[in-house]
């Protein structure tokens, strides 16, 4: 109660807010990268791939596996950067394989089944991946040592770290590349065609199975990039995919599931909501809510969005099938 509305003393200063905005946007950029995977799959299949969070989790373990082979703690950037690139490529490759396999095993055989069936098979895959990692890899927590230290001071106490810049730049770059792929390539045109009308696209000669496979592969590779960025700042264990996946799914829904800029925007908004919420809710609510309600904000946001604007902020502009 002593905190009640003591806003100035609570860090609710321009500097504090600016720093929380930076924190929120960088956290959100990772959610956004994972959200792209949900959104793309939803775009072509109109199904949620609930195993996507676990694909991301596998990626974090690949990153740990690769970086563990090198003595990185305190190493110079000349070693760190190539190793991180290698780890990212390995994570992208392995995640892509896992994504491809998920589609083959859990989705393709159920293409003509009721919609609930592939949803449940994906949840099954998710449980399998978690249990598999816990049993055959490790059920412990892992972090990377601080590899890229330092930050750029911006204004007063406010600073942005190199890792945060890297997160932002990589995720925006990935989204840009993805947009190019979807808008400018033959594969992208196929994806858009399948998204608009699966049967008609097939009649027009689009190889639907191939398009769907590639959608999973690309979405999963992006989860691999997210895995590397995540590990630069956070820790992992076999359960990380569940919460991260749920958050990214929320981001995808907030932004407008099925479209790429929407997923990105949703990710940023969610990151901001979490950061600002965690920082200021205790003071604003007179200590009734505490800063541990971070997840509550994320999911309250999801519910509000579903109630008031179910199609998301950026409405997917595909005309409804007649």
């Amino acid at each position, binding site marked *: 109660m002593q905190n009640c509305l003591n806003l100035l003393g609570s860090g609710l200063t321009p500097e504090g807010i600016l720093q929380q905005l930076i924190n929120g946007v960088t956290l959100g950029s990772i959610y956004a990268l994972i959200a792209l995977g949900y959104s793309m799959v939803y775009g072509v299949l109109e199904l949620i791939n609930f195993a996507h969070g676990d694909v991301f989790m596998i990626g974090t373990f690949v990153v740990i596996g690769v970086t563990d082979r090198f003595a990185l703690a305190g190493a110079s950037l000349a070693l760190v950067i190539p190793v991180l690139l290698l780890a990212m490529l390995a994570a992208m490759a392995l995640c892509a394989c896992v994504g491809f396999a998920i589609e083959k095993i859990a989705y393709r055989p159920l293409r003509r089944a009721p919609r609930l069936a592939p949803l449940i098979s994906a949840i099954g895959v998710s449980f399998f991946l978690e249990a598999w990692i816990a049993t055959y890899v490790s059920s*412990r927590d892992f972090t990377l040592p601080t590899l890229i230290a330092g930050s750029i001071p911006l204004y007063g106490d406010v600073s942005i770290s190199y890792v945060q810049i890297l997160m932002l730049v990589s995720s925006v770059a990935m989204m840009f590349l993805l947009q190019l792929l979807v808008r400018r390539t033959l594969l992208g045109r196929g994806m858009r065609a399948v998204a608009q009308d699966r049967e008609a696209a097939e009649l027009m000669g689009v190889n639907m199975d191939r398009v769907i496979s590639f959608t999973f592969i690309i979405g999963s590779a992006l989860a691999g990039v997210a895995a590397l960025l995540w590990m630069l700042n956070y820790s992992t264990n076999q*359960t990380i995919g569940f919460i991260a996946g749920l958050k990214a799914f929320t981001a995808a829904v907030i932004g407008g599931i099925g479209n790429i800029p929407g997923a990105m925007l949703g990710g940023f908004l969610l990151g901001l909501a979490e950061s600002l919420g965690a920082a200021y809710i205790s003071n604003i609510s007179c200590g009734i809510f505490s800063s541990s309600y971070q997840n509550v904000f994320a999911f309250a946001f999801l519910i509000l969005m579903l109630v008031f604007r179910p199609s998301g902020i950026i409405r997917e502009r595909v005309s409804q099938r007649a």
Partner: protein
Amino acid sequence: MVRARGLVVLSAMVVAAFACGGSSSGTTAAGCTNLNSVASVQSSDATLAAAVLPALAARPSTAATAVVKIGFIGMLAGKYQNYGVDAKNGAQMAIDKANTAGGVTFNGTTYTFKLDSQDDNADATQGVQAAQKLVDDGVVAVIGGIFSTATIAESKIFSDNGITQISPSATNPKYTAQGFKTAFRVIGNDVAQGKADGDFAVKTLGCKNIAIMDDKSTYGQGIADQVAGEVPTAGGTVVDREHVDQTASDFTAQLTTIKGKHPDAIFYGGYSAQAGPLTQQAHKLGITVPIVMGDGCQDTDYTKLAGTDANNNFASNGGPDHSLMSGFAAFNTEYKAKFGQDVFQYAPQAYDAANIIINAVKTAGGTKAAILGAVAATKDYAGLAQTYTFTSTGDIANSIFTIYKVESGNFKAVKAVTSA
């Protein structure tokens, strides 16, 4: 039909029990352990059990041997399995030693011991199930749980069944404050630990402005609340209080708020799986003040997860440092030979807890009530970790805490605090 069949099974077993009690040769040991299975059949039909029990109790008391089932409950697989497996190994060592020595004898009966381990996944719900499993298995005393949240949930089950429970590591005050006669622990509680940590930060480190964070777990928030209470008493100020979710990986929002309050030190109540990344993130944000933690972070997981960022931070732990236990070197050698790894954390306390139970059987016999009475009366029992006297609540009279500092990636004991 079921009743009739149960009666047949029971009578057969009663006959077996008489047969077993009547002879005294070593070969009957296997028959005697069947007494436990009789007990579990009884529980499926209470009225029959009531009818048969007097017959069992009245059997000739010439039985020379009996097996006492001791339960172990704790996380044996998963995130914090190190603690559980380590404590289980400690208890196992005490039991194996007692059995190798031929068991203990009370009133003409020689008791040997068997450990029944159940995984509670450090979770209240699964803990209750695991505790019920131990009750159904017919254990007479339990070592565990390891984590407070699960231990408190389990203590109700053991209390209801009159089973002595000794936790080697649960430090939350609530565990022994519920009025259960069966709840004991061989470690100082968080009231004492929080006082020790708060005093240390303010008085020894000379940090006046303390920011306090916790993970909202029973343990983490419990100890953080005690520190928050002690800091003003010791002459310091709590400048900020933050909480994180137990599933969270990102602590930058809370740390940024803390940074704005310019504390001299941060106290974190929680476990190393989160404290490690939290320390890294604090440093990335440019927070360089020392982080003081409780026993949930005083382990190699913390130093491994935080890497070089772990250096110059502090964590307390219940009991004296391993290096201060006089018999520890020999214990560790034996432990390593048996389990292929070094002692991790609470194995000495679990070993002591098991020995207190074994000792109780030696002085009072192998029934639940006898063990409970004898354990409660434990006074100046010299264990491996320290000397134990139980207070009326089931806490220990003199709790020892050691404060450790991370230097070059290893915890080094810097101060021992004894508090009542």
